[in-house]
């Protein structure tokens, strides 16, 4: 069948999205946007899991993605609560000004 999507393309898209997420964590100083970049990296990994799940004809990969989404929801709630607490103490969300644990 000529019409199907090659597995490589999906994996390449996943790789590119993951790299863009890593770039976001590195170049952004706004902690909320860094957090969004982490979400992007999680999504890139999820795409690869769904692609392999389909290639193997095995649903376990999709179930891992389902649990990853559950954990991402919990992680975002906790992370944003930490950001709010941080903002209350420091009045900033610039990570370069939050250096208490840096030697």
């Amino acid at each position, binding site marked *: 069948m000529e019409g199907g999507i090659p597995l490589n393309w999906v994996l390449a*898209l996943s790789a590119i999205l993951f790299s863009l997420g890593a770039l976001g964590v590195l*170049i952004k100083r706004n902690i909320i946007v860094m957090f969004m970049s982490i979400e992007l990296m999680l999504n890139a990994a999820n795409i690869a899991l769904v692609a392999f799940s389909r290639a193997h004809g095995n649903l376990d990969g999709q179930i891992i993605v389902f649990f990853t989404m559950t*954990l991402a929801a919990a992680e975002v709630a906790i992370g944003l609560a930490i950001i709010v607490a941080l903002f209350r103490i420091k009045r900033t969300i610039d990570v370069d000004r939050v250096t208490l644990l840096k030697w």
Partner: protein
Amino acid sequence: MVLKSVFILVALGAVGGAIGMLASSNPVHSALFLVWTLFCVAAIYLLLGAEFLAVVQIIVYAGAIMVLFLFIIMLLNLRRDEFGPDPMPSHWGWSLIFTALLAVVLVSVAGVSVALKFPEDPLTLTSISDLARLIFTKHLLAFEIASLILLIAMVGVVVLAKRPKGGA
């Protein structure tokens, strides 16, 4: 052919949204670009036949999680000088080089793994009942642990966001 073209369009949309998220200096714009990218990812799940995950992606990610992000951005109501310099000038080049190398390595790995192929029939959707049967039999323990983690997260958020006693 049609599927391939649709995939390329959606993939370009996702990558464009991600680049827009990194390029915009306003966090609200970043969040909206990320919502667009997450919608594109949901479309890719649909193209891969994972229709339940596509729906969950839209409801949970594009709906709940991104609304939470936007809510916090607007709740903090930051002034311009509280964003910080953006993007950071000092190690900008190194970050770009590192990311380019990472992308080259990952994409070439993706290009090499050709032994696996998608099944021939395009667009066979996953049946939700098969998914549910697996979750409630083989992965039941993981399901219970996930519910526990959500409970802990809920309690944790309340504890973290509560004002300390006697404070303002």
